[in-house]
Each structure stands twice: as structure tokens, then as C-alpha cells.
């Protein structure tokens, strides 16, 4: 049986179909999960996709963390389930406390909509298990609040525990240590600002995101057993 990926839809989410389609193109079964339901419906992996959950009111992700589905996502993550937050989904994961730090406005208040070079820093995460450490991927970014910040202690901890998953090759938004993606302590919860689903087919200009989504599906398959 192919692994199933649940893609969470909040009001204002706008990348759910892109993620579902990319996952299906890699052989997974994709299900959309409504934010108002208190369940992840038995899926093998959860993706919080990009968009503007709850209009990004207050702060991106601040209201989404109180959506009923988030309790189920938290339990799924605590049980070792693979959870990936992309862009707005990364913001939701930090607001929900599933990942440390915060994403604040880009340096110079610049909205970014471009493709950037991102380096895989570790393969010890559900998003990079099938990638090669040091590989440089061309991935689209599309955000205003992608400037990752955390205190010194958290940064040292992330580095010491090999939880910095992706780094921008060049500084694009002011993120501390050029961080583009991080993992939680178990490596099963990952947040990243770039959009791998938008780099999942040569027709889109890059298929470099496939190795990331493929890694997630491998992690999901491992759970199917």
C-alpha cells in the first residue's frame, strides 16, 4: 500500500493541492485534512502547507495553532509521526511550540518571490533522509516573514544536535546562521521556508524538491511497515 500523506487545510491555506499533487506524483496517496477536525485520520505523514492560515492575522501561524486539528498533529508528532511544515506551515509549527524559535519579517522588509540555492545540512531528518549532505538544491521561496530567529542557546542546541536541516547558500532574508529549515529533537518534525512542492517537476523549472518530498514518503512508508 502506498504511504498516505495528510495535507492540512486552514482557512487561507493555498498550497494544499500543489503538495498533494507532488506527493501523488511520487507515489503517495494524499488526503486533505480540514483544520476544524480533531484528527489526522490515520495518515502516515502530515504536511502543513503554505498560504495564509487564518489570514495571517496577529502573526503568521498565531491563530492556526489553536485550530482543533493541531492537537492531533501534536499527538502524531509526539508519537514519532513525520510532520513537515512548509513556509506558513513552518510558522504554524513554531507558534505551536512544535519547533523552537520564530519567523519574523524579512530583513529590509522585502517580500521574497524567487528561487534560491539551499544546502542540505543533515540527512538526519524525515525531510532529508534520502538526500545527500552538502547537496545544493534550487528551491522557490515566497514569503514576507521568513527571517528565522532564536536565542543563542537554542541556536547552539540546534547545531550541537544536528537539527539545522537546510541553510540558504546566500543570505536571503536575514535568518540567523542562514537557516532555511530546522528539525525538532527527534528529527521527525521539520519546518522549512522554501517550497519543495514547487520544485517537483522539470516543467516547474526545478525538480530538486522531489528528493525532500521523497524522503518524507520514505519516512512515512517506514511507519506503514
Amino acid at each position, binding site marked *: 500500500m502506498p504511504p498516505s500523506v495528510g495535507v492540512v487545510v486552514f482557512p487561507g491555506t493555498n498550497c494544499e493541492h500543489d503538495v498533494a499533487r507532488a506527493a501523488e506524483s511520487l507515489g503517495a496517496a494524499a488526503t486533505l485534512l480540514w483544520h476544524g477536525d480533531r484528527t489526522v485520520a490515520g495518515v502516515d505523514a502530515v504536511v502543513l502547507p503554505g498560504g495564509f492560515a487564518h489570514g495571517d492575522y496577529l502573526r503568521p501561524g*498565531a491563530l492556526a495553532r489553536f485550530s482543533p486539528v493541531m492537537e492531533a498533529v501534536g499527538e502524531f508528532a509526539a508519537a514519532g509521526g513525520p510532520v513537515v511544515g512548509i513556509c506558513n506551515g513552518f510558522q504554524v509549527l513554531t507558534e505551536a511550540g512544535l519547533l523552537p524559535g*520564530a519567523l519574523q519579517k524579512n*530583513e529590509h522588509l522585502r517580500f521574497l518571490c524567487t528561487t534560491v540555492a539551499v544546502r542540505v545540512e543533515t540527512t538526519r531528518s524525515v525531510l532529508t533522509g534520502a538526500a545527500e549532505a552538502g547537496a545544493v538544491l534550487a528551491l522557490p521561496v515566497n514569503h514576507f516573514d521568513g527571517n528565522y*530567529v532564536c536565542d543563542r542557546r537554542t541556536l547552539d542546541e540546534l547545531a550541537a544536535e544536528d537539527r539545522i536541516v537546510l541553510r540558504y547558500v546566500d543570505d536571503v532574508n*536575514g535568518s540567523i546562521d542562514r537557516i532555511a529549515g530546522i528539525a525538532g529533537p527527534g528529527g521527525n518534525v521539520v519546518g522549512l521556508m522554501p517550497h519543495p512542492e514547487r520544485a517537483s517537476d522539470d516543467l516547474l523549472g526545478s525538480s530538486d524538491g522531489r528528493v525532500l518530498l521523497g524522503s518524507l514518503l520514505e519516512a512515512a512508508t517506514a511507519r506503514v511497515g
Partner: protein
Amino acid sequence: MRFAALVEVQLRPGIADPEGSTIERALPALGFDEVHRVRAGRSFRFEIEAPDEARARARAEELATRLLANPVIEDSRLEVCALGAEPG
């Protein structure tokens, strides 16, 4: 009883404030060369029901730290008073 609450949220000292710096950089063009250290923030006003002011304050404080501010990067400041004597 009903109380009026004012919560001010600001980025913590040391956290870069691109909005504040952008405003500051624009000020000389308006002739405000004497203005420094601009920090942007936001404020929230609401009314809260509670048996007494201490309880109103405690609940409003919880709301401020759990939702209105992100304690990772922001500080909040709270004022609570009986309705009719709202903070300015």
C-alpha cells in the same frame, strides 16, 4: 464586573525590528533628524469580565502571553482598569 484592558506588544530589545528601522530611515526626509531608536509595535484593547481587578489582570496577562505576544521575540505590557476609566 467589566474591566478595560490595554495590551502593548513590542519586539524584545535586541530583536531586529525592520519596520521600526525603515520608519526611522524615512524620518530625515520629513525633517525629523532628531528622532532615534524607533521601535514599532501594536496595541490591543478589549473588555474583560471578572469578579475583581486582580482576576481581570491575571486573565488578560494570560491572553497577552499566550496569544497576543510571541514570547520568543516579543514583550507585552498590560494595563487594566475599571470600565469608564480606560487607559489613554
